[in-house]
Protein backbone atom coordinates (compact mmCIF):
# COMPACT_ATOMS: atom_id res chain seq x y z
CA UNK A 1 0.00 0.00 0.00
CA UNK A 2 1.22 3.53 -0.76
CA UNK A 3 1.92 5.92 2.07
CA UNK A 4 -1.05 7.81 3.38
CA UNK A 5 -1.87 10.31 6.10
CA UNK A 6 -4.88 9.48 8.29
CA UNK A 7 -6.80 12.25 10.00
CA UNK A 8 -9.46 11.62 12.61
CA UNK A 9 -11.76 14.63 12.86
CA UNK A 10 -14.17 14.81 15.81
CA UNK A 11 -16.97 16.72 14.07
CA UNK A 12 -18.65 16.85 10.68
CA UNK A 13 -17.47 20.44 10.19
CA UNK A 14 -13.85 19.39 10.73
CA UNK A 15 -14.28 16.48 8.33
CA UNK A 16 -15.72 18.69 5.59
CA UNK A 17 -12.85 21.08 6.02
CA UNK A 18 -10.29 18.27 5.79
CA UNK A 19 -12.03 16.97 2.66
CA UNK A 20 -11.61 20.36 1.03
CA UNK A 21 -8.10 19.11 0.20
CA UNK A 22 -8.25 17.63 -3.34
CA UNK A 23 -6.09 14.68 -2.31
CA UNK A 24 -8.31 13.70 0.63
CA UNK A 25 -10.79 10.79 0.59
CA UNK A 26 -13.29 9.77 3.27
CA UNK A 27 -12.56 6.53 5.13
CA UNK A 28 -15.63 4.89 6.67
CA UNK A 29 -15.45 1.17 7.56
CA UNK A 30 -12.60 0.59 5.14
CA UNK A 31 -14.10 -2.75 4.07
CA UNK A 32 -13.96 -1.71 0.43
CA UNK A 33 -11.39 1.09 0.51
CA UNK A 34 -8.59 -0.76 2.35
CA UNK A 35 -8.63 -3.79 0.00
CA UNK A 36 -8.71 -1.36 -2.95
CA UNK A 37 -5.73 0.55 -1.55
CA UNK A 38 -3.81 -2.70 -1.04
CA UNK A 39 -4.35 -3.50 -4.71
CA UNK A 40 -3.17 0.02 -5.52
CA UNK A 41 -6.42 0.68 -7.35
CA UNK A 42 -6.86 3.67 -5.06
CA UNK A 43 -4.02 5.84 -3.81
CA UNK A 44 -5.45 8.65 -1.68
CA UNK A 45 -2.82 10.85 -0.04
CA UNK A 46 -5.01 11.73 2.92
CA UNK A 47 -7.77 9.67 4.52
CA UNK A 48 -10.38 11.46 6.59
CA UNK A 49 -11.81 8.92 9.02
CA UNK A 50 -15.55 9.33 9.63
CA UNK A 51 -15.73 6.61 12.28
CA UNK A 52 -15.19 8.83 15.32
CA UNK A 53 -17.81 11.43 14.39
CA UNK A 54 -20.77 10.95 16.70
CA UNK A 55 -23.25 12.99 14.65
CA UNK A 56 -22.76 10.60 11.68
CA UNK A 57 -23.65 7.47 13.56
CA UNK A 58 -26.87 5.98 14.89
CA UNK A 59 -30.44 5.14 13.98
CA UNK A 60 -33.49 7.32 14.67
CA UNK A 61 -36.90 5.76 14.29
CA UNK A 62 -39.57 8.40 13.71
CA UNK A 63 -43.16 8.55 12.57
CA UNK A 64 -43.22 6.41 9.43
CA UNK A 65 -39.54 6.85 8.71
CA UNK A 66 -36.12 5.68 9.78
CA UNK A 67 -33.03 7.89 9.60
CA UNK A 68 -29.66 6.17 9.63
CA UNK A 69 -26.37 8.03 10.09
CA UNK A 70 -23.89 7.40 7.28
CA UNK A 71 -21.24 5.92 9.57
CA UNK A 72 -23.63 3.41 11.15
CA UNK A 73 -22.32 -0.13 10.73
CA UNK A 74 -24.25 -2.88 9.00
CA UNK A 75 -24.35 -4.77 12.35
CA UNK A 76 -25.92 -1.79 14.14
CA UNK A 77 -28.51 -1.30 11.39
CA UNK A 78 -29.41 -5.00 11.53
CA UNK A 79 -29.94 -4.76 15.27
CA UNK A 80 -31.64 -1.39 15.53
CA UNK A 81 -34.18 -1.53 12.70
CA UNK A 82 -35.25 -5.13 13.39
CA UNK A 83 -38.57 -3.97 14.87
CA UNK A 84 -39.34 -1.03 12.57
CA UNK A 85 -38.33 -2.55 9.24
CA UNK A 86 -37.46 -6.26 9.35
CA UNK A 87 -36.70 -6.34 5.59
CA UNK A 88 -33.99 -3.70 5.95
CA UNK A 89 -32.62 -5.41 9.08
CA UNK A 90 -32.40 -8.73 7.24
CA UNK A 91 -30.62 -7.08 4.32
CA UNK A 92 -28.04 -5.43 6.61
CA UNK A 93 -27.60 -8.67 8.58
CA UNK A 94 -26.92 -10.58 5.37
CA UNK A 95 -24.06 -8.41 4.10
CA UNK A 96 -20.72 -10.23 3.94
CA UNK A 97 -19.88 -11.82 7.30
CA UNK A 98 -20.00 -10.68 10.96
CA UNK A 99 -16.55 -9.02 10.92
CA UNK A 100 -17.37 -7.08 7.74
CA UNK A 101 -20.70 -6.01 9.28
CA UNK A 102 -18.92 -4.76 12.41
CA UNK A 103 -16.88 -2.26 10.35
CA UNK A 104 -18.68 -1.62 7.05
CA UNK A 105 -21.14 1.30 6.96
CA UNK A 106 -24.26 2.24 5.02
CA UNK A 107 -22.70 5.49 3.80
CA UNK A 108 -19.61 3.70 2.47
CA UNK A 109 -21.72 1.12 0.70
CA UNK A 110 -23.93 3.74 -0.99
CA UNK A 111 -21.04 6.03 -1.96
CA UNK A 112 -19.27 3.05 -3.49
CA UNK A 113 -22.37 1.82 -5.39
CA UNK A 114 -20.93 -1.59 -6.20
CA UNK A 115 -23.20 -3.19 -8.84
CA UNK A 116 -23.64 -6.20 -6.53
CA UNK A 117 -24.04 -4.34 -3.21
CA UNK A 118 -27.18 -4.87 -1.15
CA UNK A 119 -28.08 -1.42 0.25
CA UNK A 120 -28.66 0.24 -3.14
CA UNK A 121 -31.62 -2.12 -3.70
CA UNK A 122 -33.22 -1.09 -0.38
CA UNK A 123 -32.67 2.60 -0.99
CA UNK A 124 -34.14 2.50 -4.49
CA UNK A 125 -37.11 0.25 -3.62
CA UNK A 126 -38.05 2.23 -0.49
CA UNK A 127 -37.46 5.55 -2.29
CA UNK A 128 -35.15 6.64 0.49
CA UNK A 129 -33.49 10.06 0.52
CA UNK A 130 -29.70 10.41 0.67
CA UNK A 131 -28.72 13.29 2.92
CA UNK A 132 -25.35 14.91 2.28
CA UNK A 133 -23.48 17.75 3.97
CA UNK A 134 -25.03 20.03 1.38
CA UNK A 135 -28.38 18.75 0.08
CA UNK A 136 -30.90 15.91 -0.11
CA UNK A 137 -30.92 13.52 -3.07
CA UNK A 138 -33.89 11.31 -4.01
CA UNK A 139 -33.08 7.66 -4.63
CA UNK A 140 -34.03 7.87 -8.32
CA UNK A 141 -31.42 10.60 -8.83
CA UNK A 142 -28.62 9.16 -6.69
CA UNK A 143 -27.31 6.03 -8.45
CA UNK A 144 -25.46 6.79 -11.65
CA UNK A 145 -24.17 3.63 -13.32
CA UNK A 146 -21.71 1.07 -11.97
CA UNK A 147 -19.73 2.63 -9.07
CA UNK A 148 -21.20 6.05 -10.01
CA UNK A 149 -23.32 8.35 -7.85
CA UNK A 150 -24.63 11.91 -7.91
CA UNK A 151 -22.12 12.93 -5.19
CA UNK A 152 -19.74 15.77 -6.04
CA UNK A 153 -16.04 15.74 -5.23
CA UNK A 154 -15.65 16.42 -1.50
CA UNK A 155 -19.39 15.92 -0.79
CA UNK A 156 -20.18 13.30 1.83
CA UNK A 157 -23.24 11.35 2.75
CA UNK A 158 -24.29 12.20 6.29
CA UNK A 159 -27.38 10.02 6.51
CA UNK A 160 -30.17 8.16 4.77
CA UNK A 161 -33.91 8.59 5.42
CA UNK A 162 -36.11 5.58 4.66
CA UNK A 163 -39.90 5.83 4.57
CA UNK A 164 -41.09 2.64 6.30
CA UNK A 165 -42.89 0.54 3.69
CA UNK A 166 -46.20 -1.19 4.52
CA UNK A 167 -44.87 -4.43 3.11
CA UNK A 168 -41.32 -5.19 2.08
CA UNK A 169 -38.79 -7.98 1.67
CA UNK A 170 -35.37 -8.54 0.20
CA UNK A 171 -34.50 -11.80 -1.56
CA UNK A 172 -30.80 -12.33 -2.23
CA UNK A 173 -29.12 -15.06 -4.23
CA UNK A 174 -25.61 -15.01 -2.80
CA UNK A 175 -22.49 -15.41 -4.84
CA UNK A 176 -21.04 -17.88 -2.33
CA UNK A 177 -17.36 -16.89 -2.61
CA UNK A 178 -17.72 -13.10 -2.33
CA UNK A 179 -21.05 -13.14 -0.44
CA UNK A 180 -22.20 -10.19 -2.56
CA UNK A 181 -25.51 -10.54 -4.43
CA UNK A 182 -25.37 -12.54 -7.65
CA UNK A 183 -28.86 -11.12 -7.88
CA UNK A 184 -30.87 -9.45 -5.14
CA UNK A 185 -34.36 -8.00 -5.33
CA UNK A 186 -35.95 -5.60 -2.84
CA UNK A 187 -39.72 -5.21 -3.13
CA UNK A 188 -41.45 -2.42 -1.20
CA UNK A 189 -45.18 -1.62 -1.23
CA UNK A 190 -47.04 1.26 0.38
CA UNK A 191 -49.82 3.74 -0.45
CA UNK A 192 -50.80 1.82 -3.60
CA UNK A 193 -47.28 2.09 -5.04
CA UNK A 194 -44.96 -0.88 -5.54
CA UNK A 195 -41.26 -0.46 -6.22
CA UNK A 196 -39.00 -3.32 -7.27
CA UNK A 197 -35.23 -2.69 -7.21
CA UNK A 198 -32.70 -5.16 -8.56
CA UNK A 199 -29.02 -5.38 -7.64
CA UNK A 200 -26.25 -7.68 -8.87
CA UNK A 201 -27.80 -8.14 -12.29
CA UNK A 202 -27.72 -4.90 -14.27
CA UNK A 203 -24.65 -3.69 -16.17
CA UNK A 204 -25.45 -0.16 -15.00
CA UNK A 205 -25.82 -1.23 -11.38
CA UNK A 206 -29.04 -1.16 -9.39
CA UNK A 207 -32.25 -0.59 -11.41
CA UNK A 208 -36.03 -0.56 -11.03
CA UNK A 209 -37.95 -3.26 -12.84
CA UNK A 210 -40.93 -1.38 -14.25
CA UNK A 211 -42.89 -4.33 -15.67
CA UNK A 212 -42.94 -6.08 -12.31
CA UNK A 213 -43.86 -2.84 -10.49
CA UNK A 214 -46.88 -2.37 -12.74
CA UNK A 215 -48.04 -5.97 -12.47
CA UNK A 216 -47.64 -5.96 -8.67
CA UNK A 217 -49.42 -2.61 -8.26
CA UNK A 218 -52.53 -4.25 -9.78
CA UNK A 219 -52.18 -7.50 -7.89
CA UNK A 220 -49.57 -7.84 -5.13
CA UNK A 221 -49.08 -11.59 -5.35
CA UNK A 222 -46.44 -13.97 -6.72
CA UNK A 223 -48.83 -15.13 -9.45
CA UNK A 224 -49.02 -11.57 -10.85
CA UNK A 225 -45.43 -11.93 -12.08
CA UNK A 226 -45.52 -15.62 -12.96
CA UNK A 227 -43.27 -16.25 -15.96
CA UNK A 228 -42.13 -12.62 -16.09
CA UNK A 229 -38.41 -11.78 -16.33
CA UNK A 230 -36.56 -8.74 -17.67
CA UNK A 231 -34.81 -8.59 -21.04
CA UNK A 232 -31.35 -10.20 -20.71
CA UNK A 233 -29.74 -7.46 -22.78
CA UNK A 234 -28.18 -5.07 -20.27
CA UNK A 235 -27.68 -7.83 -17.69
CA UNK A 236 -24.19 -8.70 -16.40
CA UNK A 237 -22.54 -11.73 -17.95
CA UNK A 238 -19.46 -13.13 -16.18
CA UNK A 239 -18.01 -16.44 -15.01
CA UNK A 240 -20.69 -16.66 -12.32
CA UNK A 241 -23.66 -16.42 -14.65
CA UNK A 242 -24.81 -15.44 -18.13
CA UNK A 243 -27.12 -12.48 -18.77
CA UNK A 244 -29.96 -14.98 -19.43
CA UNK A 245 -29.29 -16.71 -16.11
CA UNK A 246 -29.37 -13.41 -14.24
CA UNK A 247 -32.55 -12.29 -16.01
CA UNK A 248 -34.19 -15.55 -14.95
CA UNK A 249 -32.94 -15.08 -11.38
CA UNK A 250 -34.47 -11.60 -11.27
CA UNK A 251 -37.90 -13.15 -11.92
CA UNK A 252 -37.37 -15.88 -9.33
CA UNK A 253 -36.01 -13.58 -6.62
CA UNK A 254 -38.81 -11.06 -7.18
CA UNK A 255 -41.38 -13.78 -6.64
CA UNK A 256 -39.61 -14.91 -3.48
CA UNK A 257 -39.48 -11.33 -2.20
CA UNK A 258 -43.22 -10.87 -2.82
CA UNK A 259 -43.99 -14.15 -1.04
CA UNK A 260 -41.85 -13.05 1.92
CA UNK A 261 -43.43 -9.59 1.98
CA UNK A 262 -46.89 -11.18 2.20
CA UNK A 263 -45.33 -13.32 4.95
Amino acid at each position, binding site marked *: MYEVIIT*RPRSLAEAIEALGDDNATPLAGGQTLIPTMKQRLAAPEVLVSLAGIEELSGVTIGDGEITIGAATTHADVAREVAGACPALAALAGGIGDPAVRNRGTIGGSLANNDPAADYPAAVLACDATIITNDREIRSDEFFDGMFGTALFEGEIITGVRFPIPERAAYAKFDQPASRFALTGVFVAAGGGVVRVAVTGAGEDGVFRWDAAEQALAKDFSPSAIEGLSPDPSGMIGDLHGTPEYRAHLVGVMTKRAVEAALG
Partner: protein
Amino acid sequence: MTQVSMTVNGKPVSGDVPDNTLLVDFLRETLELTGTHVGCDTSQCGACVVHVNGRAVKACTMFALEAEGAEVATIEGEAAPDGTLSAIQQAFQDHHGLQCGFCTPGMVMSAKALLAENPKPTEAEIREYLEGNICRCTGYHNIVKAIMAASGQDVSKIAAE
Protein backbone atom coordinates in the same frame (compact mmCIF):
# COMPACT_ATOMS: atom_id res chain seq x y z
CA MET B 1 5.08 8.27 11.94
CA THR B 2 2.20 8.67 14.33
CA GLN B 3 1.99 7.54 17.91
CA VAL B 4 -0.79 5.05 18.60
CA SER B 5 -1.92 3.74 21.98
CA MET B 6 -4.42 1.07 22.85
CA THR B 7 -5.03 -1.73 25.33
CA VAL B 8 -4.19 -5.21 24.08
CA ASN B 9 -5.33 -8.16 26.21
CA GLY B 10 -5.68 -5.82 29.17
CA LYS B 11 -2.21 -4.24 28.87
CA PRO B 12 -1.66 -0.66 27.73
CA VAL B 13 0.62 -0.57 24.67
CA SER B 14 1.80 2.10 22.28
CA GLY B 15 4.08 2.53 19.30
CA ASP B 16 5.18 4.90 16.56
CA VAL B 17 3.95 3.61 13.22
CA PRO B 18 3.49 4.85 9.65
CA ASP B 19 -0.18 5.78 9.13
CA ASN B 20 -0.73 2.99 6.60
CA THR B 21 0.12 0.31 9.21
CA LEU B 22 -2.66 -2.25 9.45
CA LEU B 23 -3.81 -3.31 12.90
CA VAL B 24 -2.63 -6.86 12.18
CA ASP B 25 0.89 -5.59 11.39
CA PHE B 26 0.95 -3.50 14.54
CA LEU B 27 0.05 -6.61 16.56
CA ARG B 28 2.45 -8.95 14.78
CA GLU B 29 5.43 -6.73 13.97
CA THR B 30 5.43 -4.01 16.63
CA LEU B 31 4.04 -5.98 19.56
CA GLU B 32 5.37 -9.36 18.36
CA LEU B 33 2.00 -10.98 19.05
CA THR B 34 2.15 -13.40 16.15
CA GLY B 35 -0.82 -15.52 17.17
CA THR B 36 -3.07 -13.43 14.92
CA HIS B 37 -2.49 -14.80 11.43
CA VAL B 38 -2.61 -13.34 7.93
CA GLY B 39 -4.11 -15.88 5.56
CA CYS B 40 -5.19 -13.80 2.60
CA ASP B 41 -4.64 -10.10 3.30
CA THR B 42 -7.69 -9.52 1.06
CA SER B 43 -10.42 -9.54 3.77
CA GLN B 44 -11.71 -12.97 2.85
CA CYS B 45 -10.32 -15.63 5.20
CA GLY B 46 -10.80 -14.44 8.79
CA ALA B 47 -7.44 -15.81 10.07
CA CYS B 48 -6.76 -12.28 11.37
CA VAL B 49 -9.97 -11.85 13.41
CA VAL B 50 -9.45 -10.01 16.71
CA HIS B 51 -11.88 -8.10 18.92
CA VAL B 52 -11.90 -4.31 19.00
CA ASN B 53 -14.08 -2.98 21.81
CA GLY B 54 -15.72 -6.39 22.03
CA ARG B 55 -16.52 -6.74 18.34
CA ALA B 56 -14.94 -9.23 15.94
CA VAL B 57 -13.09 -7.46 13.12
CA LYS B 58 -10.59 -8.42 10.45
CA ALA B 59 -7.32 -6.91 11.66
CA CYS B 60 -5.99 -6.90 8.08
CA THR B 61 -8.80 -4.54 7.09
CA MET B 62 -8.41 -1.83 9.68
CA PHE B 63 -5.62 0.65 10.28
CA ALA B 64 -3.78 0.53 13.60
CA LEU B 65 -4.57 4.25 14.07
CA GLU B 66 -8.30 3.45 13.94
CA ALA B 67 -7.83 1.38 17.10
CA GLU B 68 -6.46 4.39 19.02
CA GLY B 69 -7.77 4.17 22.58
CA ALA B 70 -9.56 0.87 21.93
CA GLU B 71 -9.63 -2.37 23.92
CA VAL B 72 -8.19 -5.03 21.64
CA ALA B 73 -8.35 -8.76 22.41
CA THR B 74 -6.26 -11.32 20.53
CA ILE B 75 -5.78 -15.07 20.75
CA GLU B 76 -2.84 -14.52 23.14
CA GLY B 77 -5.34 -13.32 25.73
CA GLU B 78 -7.39 -16.51 25.64
CA ALA B 79 -5.37 -18.95 27.75
CA ALA B 80 -4.82 -18.21 31.45
CA PRO B 81 -1.30 -17.03 32.44
CA ASP B 82 -0.47 -20.58 33.62
CA GLY B 83 -1.29 -21.91 30.14
CA THR B 84 -4.74 -23.33 30.95
CA LEU B 85 -6.76 -23.13 27.75
CA SER B 86 -10.03 -21.20 27.58
CA ALA B 87 -13.22 -23.26 27.27
CA ILE B 88 -13.36 -22.64 23.51
CA GLN B 89 -9.69 -23.52 22.98
CA GLN B 90 -10.08 -26.67 25.08
CA ALA B 91 -13.13 -27.69 23.06
CA PHE B 92 -11.19 -27.25 19.80
CA GLN B 93 -8.53 -29.58 21.22
CA ASP B 94 -11.01 -32.14 22.56
CA HIS B 95 -13.07 -32.30 19.37
CA HIS B 96 -10.24 -32.12 16.88
CA GLY B 97 -11.35 -28.69 15.62
CA LEU B 98 -8.01 -28.00 14.01
CA GLN B 99 -5.44 -29.70 11.84
CA CYS B 100 -2.72 -27.32 10.60
CA GLY B 101 -4.01 -24.66 13.01
CA PHE B 102 -3.56 -21.72 10.69
CA CYS B 103 -7.20 -20.63 10.76
CA THR B 104 -7.64 -21.46 14.46
CA PRO B 105 -6.86 -18.07 16.06
CA GLY B 106 -9.52 -16.42 13.88
CA MET B 107 -11.96 -19.29 14.42
CA VAL B 108 -11.58 -19.06 18.20
CA MET B 109 -12.00 -15.27 18.23
CA SER B 110 -15.08 -15.50 15.97
CA ALA B 111 -16.50 -18.28 18.13
CA LYS B 112 -15.95 -16.15 21.22
CA ALA B 113 -17.84 -13.24 19.64
CA LEU B 114 -20.68 -15.56 18.63
CA LEU B 115 -21.06 -17.07 22.10
CA ALA B 116 -21.05 -13.61 23.67
CA GLU B 117 -24.01 -12.67 21.44
CA ASN B 118 -25.73 -16.02 21.37
CA PRO B 119 -24.73 -18.38 24.21
CA LYS B 120 -26.51 -21.46 22.82
CA PRO B 121 -26.30 -21.27 19.03
CA THR B 122 -27.72 -23.94 16.75
CA GLU B 123 -25.49 -25.69 14.24
CA ALA B 124 -26.94 -23.53 11.44
CA GLU B 125 -26.27 -20.34 13.43
CA ILE B 126 -22.65 -21.38 14.01
CA ARG B 127 -22.11 -22.13 10.32
CA GLU B 128 -23.63 -18.81 9.33
CA TYR B 129 -21.53 -16.90 11.84
CA LEU B 130 -18.34 -18.51 10.51
CA GLU B 131 -19.09 -17.41 6.96
CA GLY B 132 -16.04 -15.13 6.99
CA ASN B 133 -13.66 -17.72 8.45
CA ILE B 134 -12.12 -20.09 5.96
CA CYS B 135 -10.52 -23.41 6.93
CA ARG B 136 -8.69 -25.45 4.31
CA CYS B 137 -8.18 -28.54 6.48
CA THR B 138 -11.04 -29.63 8.68
CA GLY B 139 -14.12 -29.41 6.50
CA TYR B 140 -15.62 -27.32 9.37
CA HIS B 141 -17.49 -30.23 10.93
CA ASN B 142 -15.33 -30.52 14.03
CA ILE B 143 -15.03 -26.75 14.38
CA VAL B 144 -18.81 -26.51 14.56
CA LYS B 145 -18.89 -29.42 16.99
CA ALA B 146 -16.22 -27.81 19.19
CA ILE B 147 -18.20 -24.56 19.37
CA MET B 148 -21.41 -26.44 20.24
CA ALA B 149 -19.49 -28.24 22.99
CA ALA B 150 -17.89 -25.03 24.26
CA SER B 151 -21.40 -23.58 24.62
CA GLY B 152 -22.29 -26.46 26.93
CA GLN B 153 -24.49 -28.32 24.45
CA ASP B 154 -24.51 -32.09 24.10
CA VAL B 155 -22.49 -33.15 21.07
CA SER B 156 -22.36 -36.87 21.83
CA LYS B 157 -24.91 -37.57 19.08
CA ILE B 158 -22.97 -35.66 16.42
CA ALA B 159 -20.86 -38.16 14.52
CA ALA B 160 -17.10 -37.61 14.39
CA GLU B 161 -15.87 -36.97 10.88
